[in-house]
């Protein structure tokens, strides 16, 4: 009888645990529900909808009309701004990524020194990053005004030459945006992440290298860079993705001008969707760009195996 009671208890205990586990799982889902619902409604749903809409002609006031691959054909063969906007975007990224990543690394190296007032310097370098981007761009458009801007005034007084047209010149419009981006990026999150990475490099490696006669450059090239290569890779990936998606600065400072000089791909998508009212085509452009970004990021990850060293990694 005791055995049967014991068997009964043994049989009923997993069910009680199962019931408790189910109840706890239910509570977990209840707490997760807001995020899951939000994700489905505001992220996953629109993504799937945009994929569907990319095969339609849709202006939001009339129902979408299926047109197959016409939008993609239009992008590749008919839209005079598709390829130029891609080229401009990659040009911008090619200018801003190496300079911002390199500049952030340089600043992080400087701030990693044990100097007096380091905390103050870190704050000062980080402040531009905290400035709202729209406000900073407005200030920069004044500073870079070709007629009465401070920058051209300084150039004239020092060098006695008229400064460039900056945002009003097709040659200088992108470099002007790069300048604005660097002002905020060099001392911003990139620098902070580099700083964290630098502080994770074991000091004994430098001591050993110094004992072996390695100079400053040797220590940097053979110790610092390899040890922070994961950080460098992370920052590079984020910087490239951010640069390729650049929108706000061009939208506020130049609205894509002059003469399309700053009509980047993201701005072109925005104009197509919200200014020209062609949502279907804009969705197609967005998906094409997504594919480009995925391919780019994949290539980056594949090539990273050659130069990124993770601590504890076995090769």
């Amino acid at each position: 009888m005791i055995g049967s009671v014991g068997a009964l208890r043994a049989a009923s205990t997993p069910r009680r645990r199962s019931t408790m586990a189910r109840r706890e799982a239910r509570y977990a889902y209840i707490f997760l529900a807001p995020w899951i619902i939000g994700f489905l409604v505001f992220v996953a749903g629109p993504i799937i909808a945009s994929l569907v809409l990319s095969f339609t002609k849709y202006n939001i006031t009339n129902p979408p009309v299926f047109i197959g691959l016409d939008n993609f054909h239009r992008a590749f063969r008919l839209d005079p701004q598709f390829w130029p906007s891609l080229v401009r975007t990659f040009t911008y990224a090619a200018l801003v990524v190496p300079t911002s990543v390199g500049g952030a690394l340089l600043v992080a190296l400087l701030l990693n020194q044990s100097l007096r007032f380091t905390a103050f310097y870190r704050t000062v370098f980080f402040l531009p990053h905290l400035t709202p981007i729209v406000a900073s761009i407005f200030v920069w458009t004044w500073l870079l005004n070709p007629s009465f801007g401070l920058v051209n005034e300084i150039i004239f007084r020092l060098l006695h030459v008229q400064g460039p047209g900056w945002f009003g010149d097709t040659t200088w419009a992108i470099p002007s945006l790069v300048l604005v981006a660097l002002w905020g990026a060099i001392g911003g999150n990139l620098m902070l992440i580099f700083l964290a990475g630098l502080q994770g490099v074991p000091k004994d490696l430098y001591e050993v290298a110094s004992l072996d006669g390695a100079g400053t450059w040797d220590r940097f090239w053979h110790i610092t860079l390899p040890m922070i290569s994961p950080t460098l890779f992370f920052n590079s990936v984020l910087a490239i993705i951010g640069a390729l998606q650049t929108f706000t600065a061009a939208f506020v400072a130049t609205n894509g001008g002059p003469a399309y000089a700053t009509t980047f791909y993201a701005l072109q998508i925005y104009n197509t969707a919200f200014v020209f009212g062609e949502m279907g085509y804009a969705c197609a452009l967005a998906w094409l760009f997504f594919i480009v970004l995925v391919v780019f990021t994949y290539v980056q990850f594949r090539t990273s195996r050659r130069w990124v060293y993770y601590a504890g990694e076995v090769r």
Partner: protein
Amino acid sequence: MENTLQPTQLSRRSWLRLAGSMAAVGLLAACGGTNAATTSPAASAATSASSQAATSSSAAVAATSSAQPQPANPTPKAGAVQVIMHSWLEDPNDTFWGPEIQKFEQANPNIQIIRQWFPRGDMHTKELTLSATGQIGDLVRINVAPLCPELQAKNVLQPLDTFINQDATWKTSDHSQFWPANVAMYTIQGKQWGYPMVGHPGCLQYYLNTDMLTKLGVKIPDASSGFKWTIDDAVQMFKTATQTGSDGRVSVYGIQSCLGGEGAVGVLRAFGGNYYSADGKKMLINSKESIAGLTWLSDLFNKYKVEEPLQANPDPTQLFPNQTLAVFVSTSFQATNMTNLVGSKFKFTVVPPPIGPSGKFATQVSSDGIGMSKSSKHPNEAWQALKFILSQQFGLGRFLAGLGSPGSRNDIWTAPEFKQKVPVLANNIYPTLISPPDGNSPLVPWYYPANARFNEADTAMTNILQDIWLGKKSPSEAANTAQQQVQAILDQPVP
């Protein structure tokens, strides 16, 4: 036995149950919608790409800072029908709209006007979105006249002909006050889809610093010559007015032109050219006459170097009052604006554009308008509110309050208060460009794409022509590029 000394504790399960319920309630509450207008991100761009001068519909709006608060919705009045009106943000202290609406509601106690305002740069898209989701109000502001076809094609607006024909008083005493060229821009397929709320002859009115120019010995066009001056006179004026400082840099620029879709066409028309054909289906930018007009403008930048360099957001309101700019081209709105900014620093005047080979004053009537939504639930009441917005009293008052260009009615431009406030417009512009004594008004409508692709065409045109102002392309080269690309846009169906 129960330990009554121990305080009662909430068990872990009860706590989780309670927290989960509160989260569910919060989620349900968050899913509920409101009817409030959105606030835009700061500095939303105008519909057209950056143009050279601040116009009533151009990149000046890009300087708008974060959205001003719209007036709180009033408490619904018992027995009154609510007429929802969409318009753009203005009058931040509600010193004009509030009292005017109050007067209207006192005269029409069965109607209550509810304002839903949006930043101008976002308004058009917002109205389309509201229409798509069935939330559009009763009265719809039309950002600029060329956007009327898009609102009509996308079933946002309803025609007003029935209301006009049934309202004999409106038809005889008010409708006739509107400039025919302006009303024509809201007439599509023989029906009228809106009315111009404001109007002026175009972004081609020349603001001259008369003190500076007179000192330099420049002859100012005046009433004695019927304000007639030629394009050669204009070039000479700009060259004389452009001054160089002791450091060799230009200290005063002769001219800042109005470029972009609203501006440059005024010069093209002076040469007999145009952007679009009257039916909006053909591009005319590469005609001989249009290229001649583009060349004249290009020479101001590249040959004579009298033009303020192309900038991202040009602003004559900074340069002209500070006398670093002798002349700028703009709309009627700047007359009140400059009166306030210039004050007593110097005298200025506004004159019609110089006359070119066409032999007559060039105009391109410009306006923004208002219409009635197709899904208005109270069309008769909405019509009453619409008439109020389009009335002489409202249009004049709004202009005198400094909120924009004058209303597009003759009885506004000839009102004594108008003449007193802006004599330059009343005496110089009105009798030459709007209603000359001989009755032959030179007012010509703003021609725009018939397929409702104004924004797309205007963006392409503005950007392509900027290569001319920057000296990167010749006028004929850019005109041919514009012809090809914009004609391809005109050949597409309605979006």
